[in-house]
């Protein structure tokens, strides 16, 4: 076996965190992208700014804000734990949340651009054929923006795999629970004699990032071909 059990655990956890982070942020990102692309409302610039904050703020700040808000004693965290039994603090779910927040601006940007590129005349044509608004979205808008949605999800996934600052601040660095690849590498560099192992994880990190990029490029091309009917 190429990887040790400990390494496999780190890899599995990283993929799990990134996967769920992307999946749960998808509806939010799509809704925000749609809102920003199509709607006009007071405070739109402000919302746009808030969505982009994770891109420009130090990740530590995001992690700390999440901790204050969603930690065991945070106003939202305490409520969620009591009412719904959902706990983020020091759990892998918290790592997924941190990852999805950090990936959100990238996902929203990519999806927003693709929604803005949709020819709205096609949607009007669909409505004259009897399609209600939701059906128009599902059968015209969504297939046409699919390349953008995929692209947004990929960027968010890649960002999640690399997430460090917000994760370590929000959910700490607990092996087997919140210790994703970057955190494990960081830990190894902090102990004497961990260099060789850290390097192995770095190579692993490069490998999965690269394969994610390649797979997504293939998917993207296929989706683009379908959307343009060529």
């Amino acid at each position, binding site marked *: 076996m190429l990887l040790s059990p400990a390494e496999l655990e780190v890899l599995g956890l990283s993929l799990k965190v990134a996967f769920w982070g992307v999946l749960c942020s998808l509806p939010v990102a799509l809704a925000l992208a749609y809102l920003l692309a199509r709607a006009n409302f007071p405070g739109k610039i402000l919302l746009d700014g808030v969505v982009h904050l994770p891109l420009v703020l130090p990740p530590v700040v995001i992690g700390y804000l999440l901790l204050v808000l969603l930690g065991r004693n945070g106003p939202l965290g305490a409520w969620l734990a009591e009412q719904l039994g959902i706990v983020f603090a020091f759990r892998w779910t918290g790592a997924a949340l941190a990852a999805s927040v950090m990936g959100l601006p990238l996902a929203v940007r990519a999806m927003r651009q693709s929604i803005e590129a949709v020819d709205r*005349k*096609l949607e*009007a*044509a*669909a*409505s*004259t*054929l*009897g*399609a*209600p*608004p939701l*059906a*128009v979205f599902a*059968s*015209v808008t969504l*297939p*046409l923006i699919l390349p953008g949605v995929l692209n947004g999800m990929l960027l968010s996934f890649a960002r999640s795999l690399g997430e460090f600052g917000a994760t370590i601040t929000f959910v700490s660095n607990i092996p087997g629970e919140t210790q994703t690849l970057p955190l494990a590498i960081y830990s190894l560099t902090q102990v004497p004699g961990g260099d060789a192992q850290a390097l192995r994880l770095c190579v692993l990190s490069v490998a999965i990032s690269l394969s994610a990029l390649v797979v997504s490029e293939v998917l993207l091309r296929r989706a683009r071909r*379908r*959307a*343009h*009917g*060529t």
Partner: protein
Amino acid sequence: MRLEVSVARRLGAFALEAAFASGGGVTALFGRSGSGKTSVLNAIAGLLRPERGRIALDGEPLFDAAAGVDVAAHRRRIGYVFQEGRLLPHLTVRQNLLYGRRFARGPGAVTLDKVTELLGLAALLERRPHDLSGGEKQRIAIGRALLADPLLLLMDEPLAALDAPRKSEILYYIERLRDEVGVPIVYVSHSLDEVVRLADTVVVMSEGRVLDSGPVDETMARMELRPYLGRFEGGAVIEARVAEQDLEMGLARLDFPGGALYAPDVDALVGERVRVRIRARDVSLATVRPEAISMLNVLPGTLTALGESAGASVDVQIDVAGTILLARITRKSVEALGLAPGRPVFALVKAVAIDRHSVGWA
């Protein structure tokens, strides 16, 4: 089918304020680009909300500003064939055609087989819009609108983006549609040829307003006397029946209430009804019956009106036993011949001036 339209809407510097009614068949909205025709179609389809007015189909209001009625576009059951086709690029031709079926209430008046046959689409069904020609796209757009089972079909210059051979091909399909499916059509065009060939009723628009409307032949004859239309290829429309086809000479005799008209290369069978457009500049006038001339068509009539003069020429209206013809002649001739309303005249039309583009099935 009865369509009532009365809409008002400001669009930037342009004010749309149009009202007309139609009793079925093909209604043409005719006018130059920018006269508001497409805006009227969009209002009927529910894609443009008027500020004031009322749109009703068979008495059922689709839009009524006063009563606060505004039926959503997808509930109006109004098919729309757009100028640029607007096929969904991610679907095959078959999927495009059937797109509206999943939302239609009933089984529909036409089937996919019928539409495929009617519009000649059988070979295209599995292809995607990307690599189709403009004419093919337009035929699919028409079929797609039909299959959604519309109560009314809107067509916005469906031929505008096509070259001449494609145009006549699609015109042929639209004629079949009109005659075989019987769905009422509102057809937007700035081409007099198309209007004459297809329409029963015409609504003439200019700068957002309706100048005139009514049956094609009457309205056209009325409109031609105004300088507004002088900038178009002015002419009159007569309905006739093919009485004889002289294949040796290549001439057809077309009977109409005012007499007989000889025209070359008429692509119709004896007994079929055709509509002929005779351009005003192809008609000459004489006050006595000329003899020994090459013109085959010498039609006796009465001069009924002199139009406003635009420069050297004047459009003159002649009543040939109930059929209205128009002649564009010089003011100099009007004076020289002493032409005035009530004067008996002979209208002379060169047969070869009636080309095949001027003749269509009625």
